[in-house]
């Protein structure tokens, strides 16, 4: 149970931080330390169950809500430009609130591309 969750988290870090070794290894060390922290919990306890659920949520967020951006070099707007890697699992919002567009406030609450 917990092992499967750990595996899912590790897989998700691979998806979220592809090609970014520094962040990838940091994320994995962090995941490991969190799992080590709760090592003493008995597998049947509700607390352990909660932690496993939490780990699954973390894995989901890493997969769907983390977008990598790489600074584009060689362009005039060097400082402001980032190339985003939106892979297929990233959550896409449908931006319904923007289509309504009656007031500025409504537009401001809409989020862009699901990357909150």
């Amino acid at each position, binding site marked *: 149970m917990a*092992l*499967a969750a*750990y*595996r899912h988290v*590790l*897989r998700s870090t*691979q998806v979220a931080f592809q090609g970014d070794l520094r962040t990838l290894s940091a994320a994995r060390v962090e995941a*490991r330390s969190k*799992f*080590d922290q709760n090592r003493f919990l008995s597998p049947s306890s509700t607390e352990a169950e909660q932690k496993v659920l939490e780990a699954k949520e973390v894995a989901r967020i890493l997969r769907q809500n983390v977008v990598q951006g790489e600074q584009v070099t*060689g362009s005039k707007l060097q400082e402001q430009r980032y190339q985003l890697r939106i892979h297929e699992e990233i959550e896409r919002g449908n931006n319904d609130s923007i289509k309504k567009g009656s007031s500025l406030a409504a537009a401001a609450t809409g989020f862009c591309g699901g990357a909150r």
Partner: protein
Amino acid sequence: MIRTALIQSVRCASRSVTRTQLPASRAIAPCFSVTSTRSTPAPRYPGIRYYSAPAGLSKPEVEGRIMDLLKNFDKVKDASKLSNTSHFSNDLGLDSLDTVEVVMAIEEEFSIEIPDKEADSLLSIDKAVNYILGQPDAH
């Protein structure tokens, strides 16, 4: 009736053959012209096809790669206990989380994804080797 059907099927067959051959001859030609006119050195991978058959992995090779991987795994304290049949937890002193990490590393090494059920049963080097040998996608 039969004759027309025959002719049609032959036509279809010849058409599909010429179609599948076309991209191969086309693929190599444009990449020379394109690279010369290109101003930015962005990497471009033209549709080159490799016709070599996938060579299967040999058992010694798989074993060697898994052993190397474990040698570099810092939680293996006693590298002298590494053998073809080492059990991850009993012989190498790895805990269950370490085992998950090892199996993940094996997945990445051979670029495959091992389903949870099988991954949980890979607890020793020989089991992992046999599993990899049974995977046609592993390379």
